[in-house]
């Protein structure tokens, strides 16, 4: 297909064909990472800026490697979210970066919609590396790529996403992508972590992990953040773990060929037991590997 899109802000706005095209492109890029010389000249002469307003070594490193393997020049900027009153606004920051003649900005930001705002301020391509509670499209894509690789097809697949759905950009990107490709999605969380109206995104809601674990093909487990407990959304990490943690016992009730995923980093013993993390059906490291290939495909398609 002919790729026309300039920015990647979320999976919500992508057409099925576009998602499939990214996944197919990823197949060919993954091979490069297995070569002795892991570099192709595809994006030679292009400059890509990693603009991270939230610390994230994993995502940043993954994007950086992806860019380098395509021979692009990269710069990483760790920035502070500035207030409106004092300091530099996002707009100033973006304009300054752009004045240095760059081709793409990869941005991680704590506020939903920040990349949309950025894309209105600059001429460069904008890639959303996670914005607030909104989307994390490349994570969604790499999760879906991994599921497709392991299960053959997304159509008809039953996927449970477990954890803090309300505040998860990973959940939203997974939901959009999986629904578009024909999967059945169930979100599992305590009622306080299920956002209002999520059924209208086409998912089922369940408050009990035990009820769904035997029925699904994929478990995508989200990282739980301690701050949520402090603001009253659930009583304790201990109780959360007892009700929603994937333990060895719980995994026994799952299908034999279940796929267990996690965007990382895992709180071992909280949302997932260490034994489960080491289980051969758990593919966290393959997700990391695929992440680089997905990001190579995205950069290639947006910047070629």
């Amino acid at each position, binding site marked *: 297909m002919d790729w026309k899109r300039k920015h990647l802000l979320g999976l919500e706005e992508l057409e099925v064909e576009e998602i499939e095209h990214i996944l197919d492109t990823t197949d060919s890029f993954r091979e490069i990472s297995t070569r002795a010389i892991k570099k192709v000249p595809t994006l030679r002469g292009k400059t890509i800026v990693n603009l991270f307003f939230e610390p994230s070594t994993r995502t940043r490193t993954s994007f950086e490697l992806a860019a380098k393997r395509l021979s692009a020049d990269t710069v990483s900027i760790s920035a502070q979210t500035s207030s409106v009153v004092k300091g530099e606004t996002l707009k100033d920051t973006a304009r300054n970066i752009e004045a240095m003649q760059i081709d793409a900005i990869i941005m991680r930001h704590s506020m939903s919609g920040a990349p949309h705002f950025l894309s209105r301020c600059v001429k460069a391509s904008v890639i959303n590396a996670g914005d607030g509670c909104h989307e994390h499209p490349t994570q969604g894509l790499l999760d879906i790529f991994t599921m497709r690789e392991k299960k053959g097809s997304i159509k008809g697949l039953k996927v449970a996403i477990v954890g803090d759905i309300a505040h998860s950009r990973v959940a939203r990107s997974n939901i959009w992508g999986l629904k578009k490709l024909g999967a059945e999605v169930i979100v599992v969380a305590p009622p306080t972590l299920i956002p209002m109206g999520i059924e209208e*995104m086409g998912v089922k809601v369940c408050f009990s992990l035990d009820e769904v674990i035997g029925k699904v093909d994929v478990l995508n487990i989200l990282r739980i953040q301690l701050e949520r407990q402090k603001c009253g959304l659930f009583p304790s990490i201990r109780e959360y773990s007892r009700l929603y943690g994937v333990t060895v016992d719980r995994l026994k009730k799952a299908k034999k060929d279940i796929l267990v995923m996690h965007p990382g980093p895992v709180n071992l013993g909280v949302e997932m037991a260490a034994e489960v993390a080491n289980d051969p059906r758990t593919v966290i490291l393959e997700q990391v590997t695929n992440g680089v290939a997905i990001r190579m495909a995205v950069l290639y398609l947006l910047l070629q």
Partner: protein
Amino acid sequence: MRLIIKNGRVVDPANKIDGVLDILIDKGKIISVRKNIPAKACQVIDAKGKIVAPGFIDMHVHLREPGREDEETISSGMKAGAAGGFCSIVSMANTNPVADKQEVVKFILRKASEEGIISVYPAGAVTKGLKGEELAEIGELKEAGVVAVSDDGEPIRSSFIMRCGLEYSKKFDLPVISHSEDKDLSQGGVMDEGVMSTILGLPGIPRQAEEIMVARDIKLAELTGGRLHIAHVSTRGGVELLSQAKKKGLRVSAEAAPHHFALTSEAVKEYDPNTRVSPPLRSHEDVEAIIKGLGDGTIDAIASDHAPHSLEEREVEYSLAPSGIDGIETEVGLALNVLYHEKKIKLVEIIKKFTTGPAAILGLREGTLSIGAKANITILDLEKKWVVDKDKFFSLSRNTPFHGMSLKGKAVMTIHQGKIVYNEINNG
């Protein structure tokens, strides 16, 4: 010079007049309203095909002077008001310094009378510094000229202080205008809570954050016998509570803002900071309830909640943008387009929301074309098609989500105390 407005359809709800009549004005007063007044030694305005109504009143306007004269001055706000079809506006107290002292109220009144285009009636604060802790000197504020008290921008969190405000204001027969929001429930929300906030990943404000406060304030009005006015009601539940309170005969009134009947939370889709407003844009169902409430009289007034903000403050991430819409120049157009043309609320009912409705709440001797009354007149062209252009605003700010929208219906002339202060009638 005497002024005569000829051949317009005069709609004056206060006097139950609706017909093609002439109006004669002299020395800032209305002299005569009847058919075929001879136009001798008069300036003549031909209002054929247009609606001639009593001067419109906007009872909820944030002028930014004193404090943020870069966003709006008293003068620019008055010009924007005149261009929007308003002869009178109520200025809210959340300036810097706050209008919680006589000096600030007197300053606003002095500035406004120097400018003189239209009338400004200040609202004073209920509590000192809008902090919700101690009552402001409401008696002195009344002496200085306030027509209402309000901490608008902020709710009064303490039920006890709200009780005191309602009770104490009885002595001065002042309405207490409530910005109804339970901030403990709305938390750091930036938009309506629902499927849109879920999709966009923005923190939501449930409707109940408004309704809990409306219910509380109605109960306090019942307790005190004070006069309660609910600002910018935005939810179906809020309208229902008001309807019940009115049936009980409580002294409760309410206003709705144009954005709450013209837009839904769908408008937030692209994270345009101009759609951030408090209370937030709600669902389709709420919009329908607001329109119904306007039609059946549950809601007494339409008010802009005109809230100018600078460009720099708006060119930021959605969650960092301040709340508010620069709305006084699009208000009448939206009311005519949505309520009259699309939803078919009777014109006379719409005109009431801009005239007798707010006049009764504020105790103003305005909003009527009675003989001897101040010659405040708003002329409407119901069929005029126009496109909102923020760059043509008289307001100093540009924060509108309506830029580029095509509307049908507009205020085309504003006459304040016999003087034409805004005119876009071609033959004028």
